[in-house]
């Protein structure tokens, strides 16, 4: 490795450092003790809670799988009735996908990313806390619906019309639709955290070409969540509104179409597969170099593969809908994209094989490597059957049979669960004071590997023999009994392997404030010596494997010779760096533990779940608690330049606050706008889709529409409100705090203009006699207005909040992130409103 030595000749800080500095760091980053410990915000603790909860849901959903396999072991079994079986298979899929897989990959990111990037924590620690607790509390209550015969039973993809009000009148489907709501919020909160964390908190010098592959994979994951989850958010919203208020989005008799749900669901659902696979692939790309002692072969190709797969995975959703009557040519586009995505997947496999082929030290095989090899075997088989079902005529035969069950488990269990177990064994010493057991790990692997193949390989044959998915029993004469019995034996063997892993955790996983250290002699930064404050100092990075290539790095970091060896503002801090070249830009002051995010999470979960069972008043109380706690939490943000610039070492003085486009909060707002825009984009797609299906319900002439003057006036008012906000921004920038009333007046006028614009449009549509219950056209028009109404409500809230901050003297020319964020979202709301008006009022006139 000598030829790749990257020596830093001038370290930024002189040593020895005063002992008091380290003591101060320890004290500042110390988690709270006693009962208050649950308010902890440090990523290492929240990360462990998060991963642990995801594993708990894996175990619970696994138990459901065993119940199903017991029921199917023999023909005509009466162990489970059809109603309970339907609830169990629905919950198995839902819990595995929404409560285990997505949270688990985000949780690993929360746990690992800061140390891997040499940050002290993620940029929004309280957002992580909120995301975690909303997920944990909401998820457990959602799972509990099984014990009250209230669990959903429409399959994890909940197709209408089966799940709409006519065929599923009870609350079961609502539990899925609203219960998934908080999980979506949690996932998006996590994605915002990950995007800003990866782009803005990297160690100085960690340019894009030196980012760990895992960080790239998490960046791609977060980007995919931002653009994929909005489709299912909109879908769940539409279906819940159809169920509750009878707006017929999916009812064919009124011009709706059940296929709209399938489009929205699978536009999320297929990228979802990559949302959980790509981070797992990122983990594998970290584990293999550590196990082999060689840098990953084809780093750039692997980054290419991650990004390429992330994009192409958005062109695959219809391959779940090959049997729905879509024109053959359209199916072929998706078939071609399904073939194209195998290129980046193949690139990664070959890069891993090449790295293993170049191994310097791999024998004897260690437990993480065993799971990685198991992943290769299983995932490649899953990929091959994936190519088979990407061929349209084959899919017509195999659709909805156990062949597909086998394929998806080979892909998901092989592509995500095996790498995740490899990651558990690999990164356990990063958290725990001791490694997990090699002996138990090998037992766990072999039981899971053999069990998996015994369970799922026969399902290919069962499917080809004609056994459909989701049946709770079958007749003996069909001949599927022996194959099902083999699958059931395999399932119990997997469970035995998982049980061994749980025993291993119980015996060896110990969090005592110190970890086992770099037991694998790995090269990346998470293996630097660390404590609750992460690294003693933040290093300069000149290589992709700094611990291999930068001599004395661990010692220098731990001695405080790099940046920020202390806490110059006296609180929690990390360095914000530029997104491309990772140059230090400012010092981010970070919050410590507190109750508001925790209580806001409880309130959010309570709101959704109580609403599900139509307990409206408790739901509102819960919602008010959530909003009040969010307000309390927000009030302490935007501290302004509360401290003079600080010296982090090497002659670099950083400001402690920046506003505008350089601010991390601005970036978070931009991400939120992308999410909002994606939801609105999915709604526009729904409008056009319904028109394509049912043009006859669109107004036949302009007479059925409001007079054109009304949308023109509304659009004018929207533009005027945006102009007023721009004026307020200029006023805030140039005038002293002594003349705050023009700013306040401008904000209040802007709120009024926005509200009146919305009210006019609503009134003009209402005057035409159009009602959302009458047809899918009415439903989608009112949905576009409702979406705008929701955003207007948010802007009223944000506008008044901004005025309150100003009145309290917390907003001025320098301390203005609150206003900047409000302004950004305001412009978005105005743009959305104008696009909505243009669509609803112009399109029917154009097609007359």
């Amino acid at each position, binding site marked *: 490795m000598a030829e790749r030595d990257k020596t830093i000749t001038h370290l930024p800080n002189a040593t020895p450092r005063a002992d008091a500095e380290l003591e101060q760091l320890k004290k500042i980053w110390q988690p709270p003790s006693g009962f208050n410990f649950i308010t902890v915000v440090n990523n290492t603790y929240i990360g462990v809670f998060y991963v642990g909860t995801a594993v708990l849901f894996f175990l619970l959903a696994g138990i459901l799988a065993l119940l199903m396999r017991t029921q199917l072991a023999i023909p005509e079994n009466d162990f489970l009735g059809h109603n309970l079986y339907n609830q169990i298979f629905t919950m198995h899929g839902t819990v595995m996908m929404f409560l285990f897989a997505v949270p688990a990959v985000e949780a690993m990111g929360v746990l690992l990313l800061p140390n891997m990037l040499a940050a002290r924590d993620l940029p929004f620690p309280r957002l992580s806390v909120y995301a975690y607790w909303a997920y944990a509390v909401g998820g457990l209550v959602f799972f509990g619906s099984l014990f009250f015969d209230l669990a959903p039973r429409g399959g994890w993809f909940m197709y209408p019309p089966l799940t709409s009000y006519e065929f599923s009148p009870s609350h079961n489907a609502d539990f899925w639709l609203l219960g998934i709501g908080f999980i979506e919020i949690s996932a998006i909160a996590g994605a915002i955290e990950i995007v800003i964390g990866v782009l803005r908190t990297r160690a100085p010098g960690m340019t894009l070409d030196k980012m760990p592959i895992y960080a790239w994979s998490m960046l791609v994951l977060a980007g995919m969540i931002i653009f994929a989850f909005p489709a299912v958010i909109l879908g769940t919203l539409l279906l819940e509104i159809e169920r509750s208020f009878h707006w017929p989005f999916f009812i064919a008799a009124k011009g709706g179409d059940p296929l709209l749900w399938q489009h929205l669901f699978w536009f999320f659902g297929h990228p979802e597969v990559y949302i959980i696979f790509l981070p797992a692939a990122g983990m594998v790309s970290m584990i293999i170099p550590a196990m082999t002692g060689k840098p990953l072969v084809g780093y750039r190709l692997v980054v290419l593969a991650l*990004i390429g797969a992330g*994009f192409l995975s958005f062109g695959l959703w219809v391959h779940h809908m090959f049997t729905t009557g879509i024109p053959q040519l359209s199916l072929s*586009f998706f078939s071609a994209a399904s073939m194209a995505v195998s290129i980046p997947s193949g690139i990664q496999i070959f890069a891993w094989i090449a790295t293993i082929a170049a191994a310097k030290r791999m024998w004897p095989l260690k437990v993480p490597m065993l799971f990685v090899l198991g992943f290769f075997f299983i995932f490649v088989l899953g990929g091959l059957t994936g190519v088979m079902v990407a061929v349209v005529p084959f899919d017509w035969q195999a659709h909805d049979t156990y062949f597909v069950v086998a394929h998806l488990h080979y892909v998901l269990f092989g592509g995500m669960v095996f790498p995740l177990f490899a990651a558990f064994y690999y990164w356990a010493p990063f958290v725990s004071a001791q490694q997990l057991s090699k002996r138990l790990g090998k037992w766990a692997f072999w039981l899971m590997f053999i069990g998996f193949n015994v369970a799922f390989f026969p399902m290919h044959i069962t499917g080809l023999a004609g056994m459909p998915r989701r049946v709770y029993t079958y007749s003996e004469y069909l001949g599927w009994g022996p194959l099902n019995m083999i699958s059931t034996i395999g399932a119990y063997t997997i469970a035995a392997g998982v049980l061994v892993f749980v025993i291993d955790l119980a015996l060896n996983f110990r969090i005592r404030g110190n970890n086992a250290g770099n037991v694998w002699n790995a090269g990346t930064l998470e293996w630097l010596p660390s404590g609750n404050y992460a690294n003693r100092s933040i290093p300069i990075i000149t290589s992709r494997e700094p611990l291999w290539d930068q001599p004395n790095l661990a010692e220098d970091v731990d001695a405080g010779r790099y940046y920020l060896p202390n806490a110059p503002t006296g609180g929690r801090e990390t360095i914000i760096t*530029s997104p491309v*070249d990772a140059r230090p830009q400012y010092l981010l002051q970070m919050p410590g533990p507190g109750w508001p995010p925790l209580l806001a999470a409880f309130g959010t979960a309570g709101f959704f779940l109580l609403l599900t069972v139509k307990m409206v008043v408790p739901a509102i109380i819960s919602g008010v608690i959530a909003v009040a706690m969010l307000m309390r939490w927000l009030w302490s943000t935007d501290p302004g330049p509360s401290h003079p610039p600080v010296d982090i070492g090497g002659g670099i003085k950083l400001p402690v606050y920046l506003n505008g486009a350089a601010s991390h909060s601005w970036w978070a707002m931009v991400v939120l706008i992308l999410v909002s825009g994606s939801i609105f984009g999915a709604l526009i797609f729904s409008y056009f889709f319904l028109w394509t299906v049912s043009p006859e319900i669109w107004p036949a002439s302009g007479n059925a529409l409001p007079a054109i003057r009304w949308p023109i006036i509304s659009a004018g008012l929207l533009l005027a409100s945006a102009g007023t906000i721009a004026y307020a921004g200029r006023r805030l920038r140039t005038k002293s705090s002594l003349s705050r009333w023009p700013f306040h007046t401008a904000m209040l006028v802007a709120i009024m203009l926005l509200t009146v614009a919305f009210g006019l449009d609503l009134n003009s549509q209402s005057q035409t006699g159009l009602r959302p219950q009458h047809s899918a056209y009415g439903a989608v028009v009112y949905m576009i207005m409702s979406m705008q109404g929701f955003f207007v409500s948010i802007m009223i809230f944000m506008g008044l909040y901004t005025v309150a901050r100003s009145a309290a003297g917390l907003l001025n020319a320098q301390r203005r992130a609150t206003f900047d964020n409000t302004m950004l979202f305001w412009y978005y709301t105005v743009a959305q409103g104008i696009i909505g008006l243009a669509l609803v009022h112009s399109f029917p006139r154009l097609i007359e």
Partner: protein
Amino acid sequence: MRASPFTHNFLLMFSGPLIWAVHFVAIYGFIGIVCARPAMNLVWLGIGIATWGVIGAGFAAIAAIAAVYLRIKPRDAAPDNRSFIRWMSLTLSLLSAIAVVWETMAIFLVPACA
């Protein structure tokens, strides 16, 4: 208004897949509408508008991918990063071009609205 170095460089890196995405949505939407409205399925030189549309979209997408790669360069980045961004832009463009070609070829194999 000039884009920030981050916006410029990331859009450049992702230009190929972004053009692919626009192309994909365009051909899927176009075929969906043409097939839902048989009256729109006009014929020119003996070839249906669906075929012309998909072939035209394919050429346009490939041309756009090539033009962006050839005309736009990384900005305000360290030398290592410039080379990385350029390489990533090239290879992602190639991958996207392959996907566009495969999707376009379907028009020669499958009837448009069957």
